[in-house]
């Protein structure tokens, strides 16, 4: 199968080789990132560097801006008219908000999985084939669909019913289908926004296993409000919180970003400890 690898992805956006990035140029660098929705400042002054082939978890109370920050990484905030992004987001060293960057191309390089499984009202096959078709995939589509479904640990369950509607699948299967769809365009980053919150524990465990499996090939960032999930699957954890200003405005900020083992055994900030041990509010 001949597909653009992450290497060429990085090159097309001017970066280096992802494999060489441990300790080198991170996949993402956020530098003084702030996001406004109209006159409301949702998150302020975020500095963060995310390494290749790692799972990074964003945790923190709801409204602290996890989704907002995640949406800056693939320029999804462009789709929200009131959203303004300040500071720098670098992807493989390249300014994602620079003048020569095509946001559609950026989104193609970063698969996204949402909280509620959202397959298209089409067959299982077409759900996976859709992205590659749109982006003009040249190779064998059947092979690509099979490969993506295998990578998403769904192939064995659906190989005999590829033409059936995606809606006939269980919630957990639908979410794995969405992951297959996200990786079918061969991204090098997969962004997941609370991907398991609508799933039962067994389906959740399968997705978690899948994430660990996929990080060999992808850089994964997951927003989760399940702290045990962050502890189980992620390599690094970023803890965000909300500050309430004198004006009553609630602005999110990054409190602590460190190895997940460290965060869950000996966090360096009191606020992190209080949150992960449930002593908040």
């Amino acid at each position: 199968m001949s597909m653009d690898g992450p290497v060429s992805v990085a090159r097309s956006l001017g970066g280096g080789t992802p494999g060489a990035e441990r300790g080198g140029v991170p996949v993402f660098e956020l530098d003084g990132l702030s996001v406004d929705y109209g006159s409301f400042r949702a998150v302020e002054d975020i500095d963060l560097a995310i390494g290749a082939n790692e799972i990074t978890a964003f945790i923190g109370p709801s409204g602290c801006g996890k989704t907002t920050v995640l949406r800056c990484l693939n320029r999804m905030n462009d789709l929200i008219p009131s959203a303004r992004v300040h500071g720098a987001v670098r992807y493989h060293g390249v300014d994602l908000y620079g003048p020569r960057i095509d946001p559609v191309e950026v989104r193609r390089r970063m698969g996204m999985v949402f909280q509620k499984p959202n397959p298209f009202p089409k067959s299982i096959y077409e759900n996976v084939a859709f992205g590659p078709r749109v982006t003009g995939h040249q190779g064998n589509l059947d092979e690509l669909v099979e490969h993506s479904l295998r990578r998403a640990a769904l192939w064995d369950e659906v190989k005999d019913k590829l033409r059936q509607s995606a809606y006939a699948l269980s919630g957990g299967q639908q979410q794995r289908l969405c992951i297959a769809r996200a990786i079918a365009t061969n991204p090098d980053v997969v962004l997941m926004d609370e991907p398991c919150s609508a799933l039962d524990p067994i389906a959740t465990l399968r997705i978690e296993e899948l994430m660990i499996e996929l990080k060999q090939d992808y850089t994964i960032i997951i927003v989760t409000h399940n702290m045990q999930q962050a502890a189980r699957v992620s390599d690094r954890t970023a803890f965000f919180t909300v500050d309430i200003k004198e004006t009553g405005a609630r602005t999110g900020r990054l409190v602590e970003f460190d190895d997940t083992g460290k965060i869950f055994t000996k966090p360096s900030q009191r606020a992190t400890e209080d949150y992960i041990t449930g002593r908040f509010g």
Partner: protein
Amino acid sequence: MTTDHSDARHRFAESLDEVRTGMLELGGLVLENTRRMGEALLENRLDLARTVVGADEEIDQRYSRLEFRVFEIMARQQPVAGDLRFLVSATRILYEIERSGDLAVNGAKGLLRRDGYTLPPHMHSLVARLARASADLFARGLDALRSLDPEAATAIDRADDEVDEVVGELYRAIARNAENIGFDLAIELSRIGRYLERIGDHAVNIAEHVAFVVTGSFPGGDPSAIQDE
């Protein structure tokens, strides 16, 4: 965050307090038994020695109950960070306390096995000093746990050096007087020295575990610095 959630976490915090109180009570029983054992030896009192042996049953039962409680909390609450450090350390502190209790019993059983023995005056004062010093050390270990004082370990470690010194003196006195006091008593007294010295070591370990609970690292930085049985 729902009320249920806060309630559950509130109960969780209470259950951690319960464990700490339980450990302190258990430690109190062991401390009492350690002092009783010293008194039994110094005054050659078989009745006290029997009380020491009898009291150990309750100590063992409380130990098992607390240890089970800790496992149950870990399984049900999936603690992290400071809570995790506390609960893991609790199993170790419980072990240190329970072992100390056994050492007190060993001393008492030695007296009973010999149907009592009288210490020669020089030995008597050395054993008295040693018994007081290691009981004091054990009390300080429990104080560290009560106040969650991470600094206590360093001070207790210094006090432990004094215990080691008295033990050395006792051993030398035993060696000098082995023939006078008889082979069997000489061996028993060196055992007593060893038991009391070990109780002091357990007290140091308790204080080190407390430092780990509070700071996330052991005094001196290396968990292997903790002395082994």
